[in-house]
């Protein structure tokens, strides 16, 4: 044996000895059927807790009651019950007993997934091994119960905060597999496991998945949607390949379904998915749902609410303070109201500590929430009954009843009161002492005398964290102290002229006083008697910002600058004596009135009279139809591109409309009333688009243009073949224009085959394919293409593909070489939506000309100018005017490029695009010739509602400043009160990692030219 191996051998023995030592300890509560090392140490003691205030459930408090437990069960609870002879009796006079809390959203005992190194190259396929599904963000086959381990430190933190059971999940992936319910005991995982598969968990976050798809929120939603269909198919299909992901998905179907949301709009989206697939999700929310309570109510979902209300910002630097948005300031103020809003709306919810820095902060946070009006009963319900019910464990935990688990808290009084002390938390009948129930309360004022000098001692703080303040006469002395098992140790220093003298005291608690010894600076011992004087005065906490402020609680819609508490309403209005650009054969009517009523253009004419209508003098002003932007990427949550596949026709912009985008308001101020929100141009077949009206303040669903024909974005050329994506992007098919054609032909060919299968196959169910559904809709004329395009060859190609499948390409967008194929476009029947004067930004636009629009228009192709840019969209009238400069288009025709013509391209010209009686009152009042650079919008109406008014805009600007100042002052106050603060960092919604240069020059990343 070599020397080295001898050492190893020795160490091995040592380890085994250590291991046995630990086993020896843990065998006290060993697993039932495990062999015992040593002598069996089994206890079966009956405990009776008498004279207590017992909450047998969240709404029922029994006074002077008794609770009897044995092992992990409750034997009995109530008044006048018989206490078994052999019971150990604890008198709980004056104490409260509650069911232990349940945290339904934790990662307790679960190891986070290690982040795999992502490849330099884009990864389009799953990197998972085994017979799993195609997308690695679906971790459906993960089971928390197979992977947890007891974490004593974490368990203690939970128990100290009152918890007895938690739901543990791994926060990883879109489908997260199953979570498990665990009791927070320190030993014996076999006992801790209460319910193996307690709930299925989901999120929109793909986590550590390195696969490109989904690269967008809409992709994540599409993936979930398709997987539901796939799982349905998998359950029924014969002759199928094995797919563990789908199998697990189906196995989890009957559990509670918990879905994590990180924003109120995502919460609404989850609600919609639930409706689509008949799933009543339990949604773990982000905490800003109060900002859309009406819609939240309609989800009929159940909720888990967080308590991690945002900290105040550090606003001491006024320039930094400018970086905090009104929305963030207001959210800081209103976030604690979130649970209250739910209670008020009658929505059932559980509370979680998820997101809190420390579990013990729960009481501080609950106190904030209770101050907003949330009732204590509701809080208790949300921490006990409701989470148990959500997990279908309400016959076992969450209440204190016969045969329920012995999970309960003993506290000094009402658990939600500030000075309450939790003494013990019993979990599965195991006693965990948090604070010594017999420890006297020593807080108060004392005095003692040493060497004829008089000292005053004040003991502050709570049980486990005491503070000692000592004064000699009036001079403050530094003092440190400790009180445990009835013994006080106290050391302090007294400043003398030349030196500091240290005194050290050790004294026993004795009927409110302390009697003991002190070792003096000179080393001599003296007796000391610290006499109790009086209790501390209750110092009310300073400026708690939630008190008495209900008049300030204003939720604005949308929840950001320029949002308002009350939305503008539809009015009957006559705009008098304007120049009216009708876009109809009447042309431009001078000195003409436009009467709007019930959201429609009621009458256009001279000298219109009404007693009921509001009259607006529009003399010397111009009225046009609202601007329609055929190509826009505003109001989209997360990304506009799903770049993980070359065909992503299954993704839907409709799923991700962001009603809070400030650009909606900014564009109203530029006269835009309708925007076609498109998927980006990252792939040949992009996603389904969504037409919206800019109804600022309304919800995403309310913004959708009702009844409009559905469209889909296609794209050609450099973006699709990833030419300008960087050197690594050479994997995804296609890399040439040749391949682009094949993608289309393949997709449409497969769609026809799919149609055939749907028609002819009865026995073996056909897998519902959302991609092919969309392709089929195109062929069958139920969905229309708007195709990003530049060069003539590819434009020509797509028209050929369309012809061969017998449909029309509705619109080519960008189409900067459209002028080269204007005759072919006309013949095929396509329209064009182009830029006024863009070029030279990449090779394929090298022959772009600003005369494109003029030529196309002249060739009778329906021609529009679009923005594809949130800034330029504010000036589309000016872009239209460029058609006059480049190509001599008439003024009337030029205006149609941004009004009637895009309406035609979008098939909404029967409702919008011109000033005609009966059409939607989507109109703009301009202070000047609408094609002039000097023209500004005075008012913009959508459906007869004035969503933008230049005067109101000025008022709102002032109000924003006022409200910011009020909140900043309040926050500064909070900061002075030594609450935690966070740094105000510039938060750019769209670009998270940009430098200033990019912020200034490329802040408009939401375009796709």
């Amino acid at each position, binding site marked *: 044996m070599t020397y080295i191996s001898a050492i190893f051998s020795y160490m091995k023995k040592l380890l085994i000895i250590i291991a046995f030592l630990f086993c020896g300890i843990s065998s006290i509560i060993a697993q039932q059927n495990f062999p015992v090392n040593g002598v069996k140490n089994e206890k079966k003691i009956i405990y009776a807790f008498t004279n207590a205030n017992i909450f047998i459930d969240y709404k029922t408090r029994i006074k002077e009651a008794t609770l009897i437990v044995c092992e992990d069960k409750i034997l009995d609870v109530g008044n006048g019950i018989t206490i078994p002879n052999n019971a150990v009796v604890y008198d709980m006079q004056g104490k409260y007993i509650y069911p232990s809390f349940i945290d339904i959203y934790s990662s307790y005992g679960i190891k986070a997934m290690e982040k795999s190194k992502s490849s330099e190259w884009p990864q389009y396929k799953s990197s998972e091994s085994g017979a799993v599904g195609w997308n690695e963000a679906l971790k459906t086959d993960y089971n928390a119960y197979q992977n947890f381990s007891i974490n004593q430190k974490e368990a203690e933190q939970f128990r100290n905060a009152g918890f007895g059971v938690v739901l543990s999940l791994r926060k990883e992936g879109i489908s997260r597999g199953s979570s498990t319910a665990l009791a927070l005991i320190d030993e014996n995982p076999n006992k801790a496991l209460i319910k193996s598969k307690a709930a299925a968990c989901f999120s929109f976050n793909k986590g550590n998945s390195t696969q490109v798809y989904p690269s967008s929120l809409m992709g994540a939603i599409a993936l979930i949607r398709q997987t539901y269909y796939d799982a349905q198919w998998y359950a029924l299909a014969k002759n199928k390949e094995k797919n563990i992901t789908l199998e697990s998905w189906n196995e989890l179907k009957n559990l509670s379904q918990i879905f994590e949301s990180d924003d109120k709009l995502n919460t609404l989206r989850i609600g919609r998915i639930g409706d689509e697939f008949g799933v009543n999700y339990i949604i773990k929310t982000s905490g800003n749902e109060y900002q859309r309570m009406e819609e939240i109510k309609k989800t009929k979902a159940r909720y888990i609410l967080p308590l991690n209300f945002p900290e105040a910002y550090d606003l001491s630097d006024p*320039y930094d303070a*400018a970086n905090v*948005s*009104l929305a963030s300031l207001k959210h800081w103020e209103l976030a604690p109201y979130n649970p209250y809003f739910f209670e008020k709306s009658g929505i059932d919810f559980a509370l979680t500590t998820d997101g809190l820095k420390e579990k013990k902060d729960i009481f501080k946070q609950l106190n904030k929430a209770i101050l907003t009006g949330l009732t204590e009963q509701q809080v208790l319900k949300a921490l006990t009954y409701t989470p148990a019910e959500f997990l279908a464990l309400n016959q076992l935990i969450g209440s204190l009843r016969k045969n329920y688990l012995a999970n309960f808290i003993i506290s000094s009084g009402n658990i939600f009161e500030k000075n309450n002390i939790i003494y013990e938390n019993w979990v599965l009948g195991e006693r965990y002492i948090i604070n010594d129930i017999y420890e006297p309360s020593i807080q108060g004022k004392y005095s003692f005398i040493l060497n004829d000098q008089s000292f005053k001692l004040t003991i502050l703080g709570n049980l486990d964290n005491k503070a000692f303040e000592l004064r000699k006469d009036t001079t403050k002395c530094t003092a440190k102290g400790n009180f445990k098992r009835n013994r006080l140790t106290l050391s302090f220093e007294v400043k003398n002229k030349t030196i500091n003298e240290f005194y050290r005291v050790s004294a026993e608690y004795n009927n409110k006083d302390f009697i003991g010894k002190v070792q003096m600076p000179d080393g001599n011992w003296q007796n000391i008697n610290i006499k109790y004087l009086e209790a501390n005065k209750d110092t009310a906490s300073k400026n708690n910002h939630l008190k008495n402020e209900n008049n300030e609680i204003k939720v604005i819609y949308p929840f*950001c*600058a*320029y949002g308002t508490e009350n939305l503008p309403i539809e009015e009957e209005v006559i705009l008098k004596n304007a120049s009216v650009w009708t876009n109809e054969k009447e042309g431009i009517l001078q000195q003409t009135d436009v009467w709007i009523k019930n959201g429609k253009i009621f009458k256009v004419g001279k000298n219109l009279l009404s007693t009921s209508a509001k009259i607006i003098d529009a003399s010397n002003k111009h009225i046009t139809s609202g601007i329609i932007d055929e190509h826009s990427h505003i109001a989209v949550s997360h990304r506009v591109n799903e770049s993980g596949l070359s065909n992503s026709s299954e993704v839907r912009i409709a799923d991700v409309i962001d009603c809070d985008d*400030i*650009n909606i308001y*900014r564009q109203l*101020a530029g006269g835009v009333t309708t925007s076609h929100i498109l998927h980006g141009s990252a792939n040949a077949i992009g996603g389904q688009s969504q037409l919206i009206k800019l109804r600022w303040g309304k919800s995403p669903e309310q913004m959708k243009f009702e009844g409009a024909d559905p469209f889909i974005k296609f794209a050609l050329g450099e973006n699709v073949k990833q*030419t300008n994506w960087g050197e690594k992007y050479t994997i995804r098919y296609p890399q040439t224009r040749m391949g682009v054609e094949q993608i289309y032909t393949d997709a449409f060919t497969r769609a026809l085959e799919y149609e055939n299968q749907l028609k002819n196959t009865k026995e073996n169910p056909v897998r519902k394919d959302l991609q092919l559904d969309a392709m089929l809709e195109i062929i069958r004329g139920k969905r229309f293409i708007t195709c990003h395009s530049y060069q003539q060859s590819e434009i020509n190609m797509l028209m050929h593909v369309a012809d061969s499948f017998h449909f029309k390409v509705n619109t080519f967008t960008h189409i900067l070489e459209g*002028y*080269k194929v*204007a*005759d072919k476009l006309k013949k095929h029947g396509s329209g064009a939506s182009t830029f006024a*004067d863009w070029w*030279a*930004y*990449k*090779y394929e636009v090298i022959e*772009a*000309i600003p*005369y494109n629009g003029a*030529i196309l228009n*002249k*060739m009778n192709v329906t021609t529009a100018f679009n923005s594809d840019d*949130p*800034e330029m969209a504010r*000036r589309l009238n*000016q872009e239209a*005017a*460029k058609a*006059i*400069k480049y190509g001599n288009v008439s*003024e009337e025709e030029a205006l149609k490029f941004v009004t009637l013509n895009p309406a035609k391209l979008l098939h909404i010209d029967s409702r919008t695009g011109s000033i005609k009686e009966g059409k939607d009152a989507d109109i703009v009042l301009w202070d000047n010739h609408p094609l*002039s*650079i*000097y*023209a*500004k919008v005075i008012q913009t109406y959508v459906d007869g509602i004035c969503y933008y008014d230049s005067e109101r*805009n000025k008022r709102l600007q002032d109000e*924003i400043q006022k409200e*910011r100042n009020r909140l900043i002052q309040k926050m500064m106050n909070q900061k002075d009160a030594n609450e935690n603060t966070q*740094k105000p*960092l*510039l*938060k*750019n*919604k769209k670009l*998270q*990692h*940009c430098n*200033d*240069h990019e*912020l*200034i*020059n490329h*802040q*408009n990343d939401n375009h796709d030219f």
Partner: protein
Amino acid sequence: MIFKINSISPALQKLIIGLLFCHGSLTTMAQNPAPAPAQSKSILIKNVQLHDGNGKTYNNASIGFNEGKITFLSYLNMDEKNNSWDSIIDAKGQHVYPGLIALNTNIGLSEIEALRAMNDYSETGSINPNARAIIAYNTDSKVTPTVRFNGILTAQITPSGGLVSGNSSIVSLDAWNWEDAVYKSDEGVHINWPSMNVYYGQKSNEEDFEKKQKERIEKELKNLEAFFEDSYNYHLNNKPNPKNLILESMRGIFDNTKKLYIHANFAKQIMAAVNLCNKYKINFVLVGGSEANMVINLLKDNNIPVILGQTHQLPLREDEPIDAPYTLPKKLQDAGILYALSCNGFWQVRNLPFIAGTAVAYGLTQEQALSSITINAARIAGIDKTTGSIEIGKDATLILCQGDILDMKSSVINRAFIMGKSVSLDNVQHQLYLKYKSKYNID
């Protein structure tokens, strides 16, 4: 007389195009027009609305120029007949403006944004004060004539990127080669002030991300300060040995023979820039200035001129007034700060007059807005002695425009003169327009 197809009858146009096709070579179509020869004959333009760039406008004015210089202005009570004019243009109802000046552009340094081979404006490394944009300036860019088409006749060709990007030069936008184009070479060095904003990081390591950014900011500021210190010390020595090309190119900054352009948008950056430059008693020009309104007194007290970055821009923050960028020029005007308007990029620069037009919609007068893209720009670039406005003795660099040059609805430029040379307004885009009008047989 230049070949100006716009004003010729459609029939004649077709004939001309036909002739061009007869030559058989399409390449002749996609050519830039030849630079104009020097002015050899005196020209008088009569009956125009004249905008002098200095803020004044004159009805029914006449302007005469010879050998490249303005020699006659009717409103100065000069006798028109004292000069014998070789050529008289009666431009009744039209407007004369000084040629527009585009500052801070990379025209001629980039031809196609997305193609690496076609970009020459950003040198590798961080400190490049010795890099000279002028020698990379491509006079044959297809973009330049399209910009000239809208009245931009002079430009500051500016490098970008890194901490110190290099030297810009002023050029006339009609030349055979860069030597020919130069109006004022290597007139200034451009510095990009380090970002001083801290951004939110990813959830996982947010605190670390914040810390790293702060470290980065501190490091970059220290580098910049050290660079100034080195440059200053170096300039004190007239005959340094060895010669350091980097520091040598900063010498002019300290003896005020060269401009210093500092690109910064945020108030904190601007304040830091003022602080550093005051230490060395350097006057600098602020470029960007999105938050100039927040430090307006500082700019005024220190006499700092501003080249505003493109104001066709979204507000920086959602709480700001929605028209904040549009109203910025008016705020600088009211504060009495010398400022010019500018346009991002190169091909985009043709929209410079419309950026000025927007400033009119939001508060400026038309003449003030015109000044901001003519004489103000010339003052900032230090070329106002000879150009930037219509004055006797200044260069005859001017435009004859059908309507209001600031409003796209009416702006049609008929003639342009650079130092008296009648420059072509033709360009490849217009040629393609004619080519396809001809194909479809439309007007």
